């Protein structure tokens, strides 16, 4: 075996081992979406309660919290109480908007879920999955924070808690004041 080939083999194997070792640092579930840090597009969807369309126009100076949910999603039920409490806290603030987007679910089941779980913020039906696509949703629950400037500031995968919600909202409001 020529010397260079020997070196190539040894170097290749060493590189392989280093890569495998480094791989422990990464979590295969953690996939970055392409949309964080970019402006969010406006969208219009029908409301679940049948009261007509709702248009969300990011960048109009409000902090928008968009939560993707479905009735078949068990972690969504887990995170719901936190959402309910935080919605109550910011309900009186005109600069904070909560929107629930029903993801891959039937209108009826979604409506029942909303009623049973005390969801009182605006909920809309993404029946084509286009809004979820625009935001880069992988699996629900996912929650997006849009700043007053209309830029998607952050994304939370999996069930969210009150602390994360409050920090996400307050940071964006503080930034807007500055």
């Amino acid at each position, binding site marked *: 075996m020529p010397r260079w080939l020997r070196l190539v083999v040894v170097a290749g194997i060493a590189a*392989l081992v280093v890569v*495998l070792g*480094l*791989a*422990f640092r*990464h979590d295969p579930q953690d996939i970055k979406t392409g949309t964080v840090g970019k402006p969010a597009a406006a969208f219009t969807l029908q409301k679940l309660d049948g009261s007509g369309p709702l248009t969300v126009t990011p960048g109009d100076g409000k902090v928008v919290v968009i939560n993707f949910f479905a009735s*078949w*999603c068990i*972690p969504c039920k887990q995170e719901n109480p936190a959402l309910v409490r935080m919605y109550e806290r910011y309900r009186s603030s005109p600069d904070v908007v909560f929107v629930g987007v029903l993801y891959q679910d*039937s209108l009826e089941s979604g409506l029942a879920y909303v009623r049973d779980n005390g969801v009182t913020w605006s909920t809309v039906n993404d029946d084509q999955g286009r809004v979820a696509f625009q935001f880069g949703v992988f699996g629900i629950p996912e929650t997006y924070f849009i700043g007053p400037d209309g830029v998607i500031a952050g994304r939370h995968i999996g069930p969210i808690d009150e602390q994360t919600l409050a920090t996400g909202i307050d940071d964006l409001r503080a930034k807007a004041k500055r």
Partner: protein
Amino acid sequence: MTWADLGSSALRAALPLAIWGCAAAAYAAAKRDGRALSSARWAALLTFVLVSLAVFAMEGALVTHDFTIAYVARNNARETPMFFTVISLWAALEGSILLWTLILAGATTYVAWRGTRDLPRLGTTALAVLLGMLGFFLILVTTPAADPFIRTDPPADGLGPNPLLQNHPLMALHPPLLYLGYVLTSIPFAYAIASLILGESGDRWLVATRRSALISWALLGVGIVAGSWWSYAVLGWGGYWAWDPVENAAIMPWLTATAYLHSVMVEEKRRLLRTWNLSLVVATFALTILGTFLTRSGVVNSVHAFTQSAIGPLLLGYLVAIIVLSLGLLLWRMPRLVDAGEIGAPLSREAVFLFQNVVFVAATLTVLLGTLYPLIAEAISGAQLSIGRPYFDTVEVPLALALLFLMGIGPQLPWHGASRATLERQFTWPVVAAAAGAAIALLTGLASAFAVLTYALGAFVAATVVQEFARGVRARHVLHGENAGTALANLLRRNGRRYGGYVVHLGIVVVAVAVATSQAGEIQVEKTLSPGQTVAAGPYVVTLDALRNASEPQRDLLVADLTITGSGANEHLHPALAFYPNATQAVGSPGIAAGSRNDIYTILAAYDSRAKAWATIRVLVIPLVSWLWVGGLIVGLGAVIAALPPPRRRLVAAPAAVTAPGTAAGGE
């Protein structure tokens, strides 16, 4: 005594025994001490008995739903059917490592009692290596990394196996076959390492492990086909191979093992490629451990990946130790591994084997790099990338076609080099058959160039095989006056290695044709239907008769009743969505009508949950896909023929067609 006590104490008793046996075997080999060897043998046997006892305890715990054991609580439920309860042994990480340990202990015991008799020093050294590896696996199953008997607060009912794993009877076959294949690569590896440690210049290790290499290769291959059959029947997308990391992990050692089985012949006949063969054996074994690491450590995302555990770093350490040790030994002993002579001309059998080896290794590197590249990219730049089927298909399909071509010419060429007359004699009819194969592909309407080429090369290879059999039969007829049937049987029995090999080649041709046809000729339609409505798919008409709920003890189902008519078909299929109590999403269960020409594959993709007024049905018509499993069986059959020992020759024997095995050195 509980099942947990029995199992964990058996494993804890086995660990020191294996370590003792390893030391005793090493001492026996070094000092030629018979008592130490005897002690190592008994240690191996006892370890095997104890691990069997632990497996028995696990099965007992599963069958009696003993939820005090965390593994049982997580992977079994009272409603789980008995069949799936029994095979839950390999439904998750700890149990599968336990099964692995059992197989390794069995292989070790075999070497301890059989291998050390024929080749005492080499076999005993190999036994020490095997017992060392067994010790490692026993450490895994006795530490929290993969202890199958960890106790827990018993819940009222367990979670039940992963829904995907309790959906199909092939789960009983596919993992054990693969594990057997994986673990049996340890035997050639252990002998190779032993040979390097002892500094032998001969190739006794290779002759001694020829059969176990062949068997492990065949089990791996059949296990891979069984796995693709399972994913075809269960995963519900109508495909059988997705270049998923776990599939890649299984195919890599199979590729290098295939290369090895061929280059071994070059070493046996021509005393060449010694270092290369040792490297292939080491690579095959290291790739089985790499595959285990990839699938058990949670670093890659995959259908089959088990949950993350502390086992990752341990397996990585084991892999590094194996690579460093083998590579070090190889480099140290390389001066002794001289080849006798040179390789023949580019048109000799050994040269084709060499080219074939190059292609196999390139194919393996491609799979390895493609599987790991997302990890590499993320480690270097933090970028998240995907590498999937388009990449692997683009690179691997041409390599596979090249291999098909080499498979046709290799066995037809003589060693050393071929004359023009030989070439004409060997290849005239096969090349004509290739043209016929291409014509058949065009006439049956296959539009893809790859498919046409596959048919041509498949016909080429098949014709060479038929030509070989015809010549062999004719020779026996002339020499011994045997009729065709007897002559064929005798060819397979007396020269199984060669003619069994041809049978394997035929099986590969069947697989290649099945893959090419099913890929190129697949028809896919999808339509939302109300009950009573129909959709046309190729020559067939699919009618949605009804949507209904069904209930089984362990799950609820939503079933679509379909009737398939047209083109002589009259089938009732029932694709369904299954809802398991502990799974968030429904699991699709396809309805398949398998046929020798077409498989009709139906999927219930979506449905109206409220009124059951409509369902979206996806229909795939997949030609010749059943022949893929048949091809796998033929490959297995050929391997069995090749592995069977030839009948003992009487003193006045027929002209010897093979060189006697066991002649270790020297030229022809």
